[in-house]
């Protein structure tokens, strides 16, 4: 047995994948979406689709399940999976779409599917090019575009797609699913721990299952293990960076920021969301009204992160603001920033 075969035997070790629903019937939530999609399957025809909604609500899962129900178990032959964040530019996408469109269509369905994940990460120009692609190959292909923010998809594309909105998962949905997985895996887990996972994952099923699997790997799914996992997985450097900036040592805070971005590979959005969480938590000792003032500025920076080109510079501005606030609040002369 080659290593490749061996790995097939052990293929499903990541629970997010192992317990991903394979068919539309297995999808527990998003009933409205499922009903409409089943209609398309019955008609063996579909417009282009745009799946929009927060992370971990099942967009990619539903897309695969849809393809599965449409083509059968070898659906992968008729599904081209692309990720806008990973493909290097629209030209690469164009080439792949072109080649894929040339391959034969399944007997009973007159078109193949192209799944383009994270399509809201494409520039407006690239989206224009995408729109032309969608028109050019519409005879043999349909696109499923997946996006967190549908507003970032240009109007001409939106108007060519049937838009499906995915709602955040409810506590019952997530806890129920986690509990079911625990049963399948023969893992002991208590209800409090599962509820804690839901609180920490904010309705993101992928995140919830990741926490569950990691906690199980620590021995058992208990509340304390859940917190331990989340603590270990989230770099403590964020808090340290905030405190360093508040103390007035801008350069040191910036060094921490750089290590988070470059060494850990965290994106600016990830970092700012964690900063926001820390600032509003009780661990950072700031007067409440200052926290509100900061929330406003953090939001502004998050907005600019999307608009700007260099995420570090945007976050540097936030660190500089923290130094100002640190000086005001603490009332202590900050350390000299320069040398």
């Amino acid at each position: 047995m080659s290593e490749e075969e061996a790995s097939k035997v052990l293929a499903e070790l990541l629970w997010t994948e192992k317990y991903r629903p394979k068919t539309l019937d297995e999808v527990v939530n998003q009933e409205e979406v499922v009903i409409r999609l089943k209609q398309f399957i019955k008609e063996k025809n579909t417009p282009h689709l745009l799946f929009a909604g927060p992370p971990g609500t099942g967009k990619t899962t539903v897309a695969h399940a849809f393809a599965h129900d449409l083509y059968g178990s070898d659906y992968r032959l008729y599904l081209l999976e692309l990720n806008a964040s990973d493909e290097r530019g629209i030209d690469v996408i164009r080439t792949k779409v072109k080649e894929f469109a040339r391959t034969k269509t399944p007997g009973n369905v007159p078109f193949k599917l192209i799944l383009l994940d994270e399509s809201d990460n494409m520039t407006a120009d690239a989206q224009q090019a995408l729109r032309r692609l969608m028109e050019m190959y519409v005879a043999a292909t349909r696109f499923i575009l997946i996006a967190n923010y549908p507003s970032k998809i240009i109007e001409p594309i939106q108007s060519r797609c049937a838009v499906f909105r995915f709602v955040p998962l409810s506590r019952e949905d997530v806890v129920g699913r986690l509990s079911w997985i625990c049963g399948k895996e023969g893992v002991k887990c208590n209800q409090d721990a599962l509820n804690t996972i839901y609180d920490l994952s904010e309705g993101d099923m992928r995140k919830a299952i990741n926490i569950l699997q990691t906690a199980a790997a620590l021995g058992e799914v208990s509340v304390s293990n859940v917190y331990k996992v989340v603590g270990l997985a989230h770099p403590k450097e964020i808090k340290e960076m905030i405190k360093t900036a508040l103390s007035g040592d801008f350069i040191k805070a910036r060094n921490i920021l750089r290590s988070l971005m470059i060494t850990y590979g965290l994106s600016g959005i990830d970092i700012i969301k964690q900063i926001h969480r820390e600032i509003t938590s009780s661990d950072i000792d700031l007067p409440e009204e200052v926290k509100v003032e900061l929330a406003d500025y953090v939001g502004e920076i998050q907005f600019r992160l999307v608009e700007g080109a260099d995420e570090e510079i945007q976050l540097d501005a936030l660190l500089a603001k923290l130094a100002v606030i640190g000086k005001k609040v603490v009332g202590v002369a900050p350390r000299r920033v320069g040398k």
Partner: protein
Amino acid sequence: MSVSKVPWVIKYRPRKLSEFVNQDEAVEKIKAWIKEWLSGRPEKKAALFYGPPGSGKTSIVEALCREYGFQLVEMNASDYRREQDIERVARLASVQRGLFASRRIILLDEIDGLALAGGADAGAIEAIVELIETTKNPVIMTANNPWDLAFRPLRDLSVMIEFKRLSKSNVLEVLRRICVAEKLACDEKALDFIAEKSEGDLRSAINDLEAVAEGGGKVTEEIAKQLLRARDRILEPFEVVRKIFWSKYVWQAKLNATQTDLDPDTLMEWINENLPRQISDPEDLWRAYEALAKADVYRGRIVRSGSWDLLTYVTELMTAGVALAPKNDPKSKFRWVKYQFPEKIRLMSQTKEARALRDSIAGIIGARIHASKAKVLKDVLPYIKVIFENNVEEAAKIAISLNLTDPMIKYLSQDKADKIIARVKELRKAIRAEARKSESGREDVQKAGRKSEESGRAQQAKSGLDSFVKKTRS
């Protein structure tokens, strides 16, 4: 390359300690320290040579080796970024004596590059400390600025030897000597200009002189000014950044930004890097960063929309916006501070390998679970790491299922990598053995449908593996 093409900075390096200009005090201290070594009992086993660039720190080590018959083991900053490198090369050299040369000197050149709070080099300082503690040979370090907090352990263990900034007349003296040796007609005013510009950096002065002599054929003031000014514009981002910070008017700041060949992105990195070094008042610094951040927003809009006519706003905000930000302490921007090459650009190239490894792991996982690399990095990899740091058995199985290489496993687990790798080997062997068993058993029932056979084989291998796992675990 012919012999005559040896760069002048090397050709005219002083050979003896007595030839060094204006560093008598340093030379005396060095001699005393080396004599301690030769008599067997140095009070401190390392020396830290510090002073401005081009004051002769590295050259003096070479001269020292020549005069006292030491063999030089040199490590340049780029050679010892990581602690393993120091341990491997330097420790080896410091403990074993040279076979023929009676003694060695270990030179760690330009340790400034290690001044990184909590960065990738954190272990490097510790490794050097250990090297100094165990060495049987003199260790010399050089630095422009030894006062960084991170260097404190090194300072405690070292004889501190200061190298003075050379005066203009020191530099002139050497330049004149070179002109004579090269049989060059050198205009005194040209030499004056070069010496002035060098700010005591003899290496850059000699390089400039050579550039003028070679580029112009002779050394006149006119040629010197023309050549070196033109060169400055291309080579000295420091100057551009300084001029931008020092601007008082919008037009002035914008004009200064045109005096560089740096593209706007790189120029912005230079400004970003040095802004907090120049501006010390927190509110002033924040105002400056607001301007820079807004410049960056316009830059983002250009990238996304292709409207290059927005570039002027980028330039104005990142130059004038920054220059006019200091209000609480408006004079601070005229302070003379030493600027740095953008740390971010350096970090990016330094961490290239590790990032590539990290990204390929993210790629493998992403393909498996239908997510982009960015998503994997944020939402999945941190958890996988926790598993790899805490559960060898589970980690080994995941490693096999994802077909991870040993370096990838090492990336994911600092402490348990060896155990995981060993377990992966065991499990793989077991899988192969099970597969062979099921293969031989299969011969008897060869006529069975191929498809069910395959799945049966996988099933068998899996249950075989499960029982193996159970056996070896208990």
